[in-house]
C-alpha cells in the first residue's frame, strides 16, 4: 500500500526532518509510528498526504508515485485518505456537523446519506449531542474526536492519524483504538503516530520507531 524510497525532507532552515527513509506498509496493515518529539512522525504523515512535498526520494501509495500526480489527482487521492491532524485543523466557522459532513459533501454524496453517515460517525466518537456547536465551544478532547470523526466519515482506504488520543483519557483512547481496529478489519490501512506506550502495547501491532528523521528500529509486536 505504502512504500517510501530514500525519502527525505528538509524544511527551510536546512536540517533534515526526515532522511533516507525506506519503509513499506502493506495493504490492510495497522502500523504505529513512534519516536521522540521532533523525530519526524508528523513530517512523514504530511508527506503521505502531500501536505508537504519531499525534498528527496519517492513516496508510492497504492502503486502510484505521489510526486507525479496532477492537481486533480491529488484532490482525488486525498479524498481516499482519512487524516487526523495533530492540531485538529477544524474549520472554526463551521459547526461540528458541517466540519464532518464536509468530507462527504465534496464526494457528492446525497444529502440524506451525508446526514445519516455524519450522525453515525459522530455517535461512534460520542459527540452526537454536539452537532451544532462550533469547535471553540468544545473541550480539547471533544475537538480531537471531531477530527477523528471527519477522518473516518467517508470510509477511506487509508487512515493516517497524528497523535489522535493526545487529549483523550485512557478509556476513550482505547475506544478510539477499537474503532480504528474495526475499520482496519474492514480492509483499511491504518497508520497511527503516537507517544502512548500503553496504547501500543494494548493494541499490539507493528511499531515503526523514528529518531532524528531516521528509522530507529523495526519491531514486530506480539500478535
Amino acid at each position, binding site marked *: 500500500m505504502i512504500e517510501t524510497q530514500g525519502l527525505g525532507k528538509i524544511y527551510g532552515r536546512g536540517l533534515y526532518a526526515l532522511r533516507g527513509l525506506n519503509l513499506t506498509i502493506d495493504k490492510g496493515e495497522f502500523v504505529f509510528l513512534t519516536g521522540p518529539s521532533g523525530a519526524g512522525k508528523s513530517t512523514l504523515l504530511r508527506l503521505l*498526504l502531500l*501536505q508537504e512535498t519531499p525534498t528527496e526520494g519517492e513516496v508510492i501509495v497504492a502503486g502510484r508515485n505521489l510526486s507525479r500526480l496532477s*492537481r*486533480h489527482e*491529488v*484532490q*482525488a*487521492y*486525498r*479524498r*481516499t*485518505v482519512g*487524516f487526523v*491532524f495533530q492540531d485538529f*485543523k*477544524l*474549520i*472554526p*466557522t463551521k459547526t461540528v456537523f458541517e466540519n464532518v459532513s*464536509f*468530507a462527504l*459533501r*465534496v464526494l*457528492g454524496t446525497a444529502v440524506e446519506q451525508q446526514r445519516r453517515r455524519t450522525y453515525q460517525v459522530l455517535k461512534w466518537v460520542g459527540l452526537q449531542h454536539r452537532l451544532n456547536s462550533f469547535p471553540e465551544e468544545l473541550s480539547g478532547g471533544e475537538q480531537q474526536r471531531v477530527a477523528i470523526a*471527519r477522518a473516518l466519515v467517508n470510509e477511506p482506504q487509508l487512515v493516517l492519524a497524528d497523535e489522535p488520543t493526545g487529549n483523550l483519557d485512557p478509556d476513550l483512547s482505547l475506544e478510539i483504538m477499537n474503532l480504528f481496529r474495526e475499520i482496519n478489519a474492514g480492509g483499511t490501512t491504518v497508520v497511527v503516530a503516537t507517544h502512548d506506550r500503553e496504547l501500543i502495547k494494548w493494541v499490539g501491532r507493528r511499531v515503526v520507531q523514528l529518531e532524528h528523521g531516521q528509522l530507529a528500529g523495526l519491531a514486530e509486536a506480539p500478535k
Partner: protein
Amino acid sequence: MTALGYAFAEAWTSIRRAGRSAAVSIGTIAVAFITLGGFLMASVNVQRVLDRWLESAEVSVYLVDELPDEVRTALELHLRQQPIVAAVEFVSKEKALARFEADFPELQDVATAVPQNPFPAAFEVRLRPEEAGGPDVDELTAGLSGRDGVADVRYDRRWLTRLTNVVRTAQLAAAVIAGVLMLGAGFTVAAVVRLSLHARRGEIDIMQLVGAPFSYIRGPFIVEGLLLGGAGAIVAVAVVALAYTAAARWLGPDLAGFIGVAQLQFLGLREAVVMVGGGFGVGAAAGTVASRSAR
C-alpha cells in the same frame, strides 16, 4: 450546479455569521462607489452645461442692404443644407436695432441720433455643438465671405475655440479622473474583500487537505466577494439617488438658473447598471484572488 448552489449557500451563511465585519466591508465598498457615482453624476451635469454653451455657438452672416428676396432665400437654403448647421434665423435690420436698444439702453441717444438704421440684416446660424470650434466651421465661413449679398461673416472663433479646447480638456480630465476613481473603487473593493477573506485563508488550506475540489473551495469565496461587492455598489447607487433627490429639491432651483439646464440629471440607468455590475465583478475577482491557495 450543485457546486454553484453550495457556493451560494456557503457564502450566504458566511456573510450572515461574519455580521459586523461583513457590514464594515459592504460599507467601505459603498463609500468607494458613492465617490465614483457622485463624480459621475457631477460630470454628467457639467457636461450638459457645456453642451448647452456650445449649442449657443453662432455664426453671424451680415447681409448687404437692399438685398433681393430671391438671393436671400437662396443664401438661407444654402446655409440650411450645410451638414454642420443646426438652425438658421433671419434677423432683419429693424430687429437688429431693437435688440441693440434693448441691450444697451444707455446708448439710446446714439441710436436715435443716427439718421438711418445703421444695423445690417443678418442670418444667425446655430452650429451643431460637436462641430463648433472645429475646422469645418472655418471652411464654411471662408466659403460664405465671398458669396453674393454677404457683407461680412463674424464668428467669434477665438472664444469658441478656447471654449472647445476647455471642454475637450475637461472631458479628457473627467475621463482620466473617472478612470482613476474606477480603479480606486475597484482597488478598494478588492482590498476590502481580500482583507475580509484573508483571515479565513486557513480554511482554504484545510479544505484542500481534505481533498475538496477547487470549485468547492473557491466557489464560496468568489460568491462571497461577489455578494459583498454587489451589495456595496447597490448601497452606493441608493445613496447617490438619495443625495440626488435631496440636491434636486434644495439646490435645484439655484443651480438650474445658473447652469441653464431645466433640471439636474441623475446618473443614467446605464451608469447605475455599470456601477452595480462593476461591484459584482470586482468583488468576484477579489474573492478569486483572495482564495488563491498558498500553494
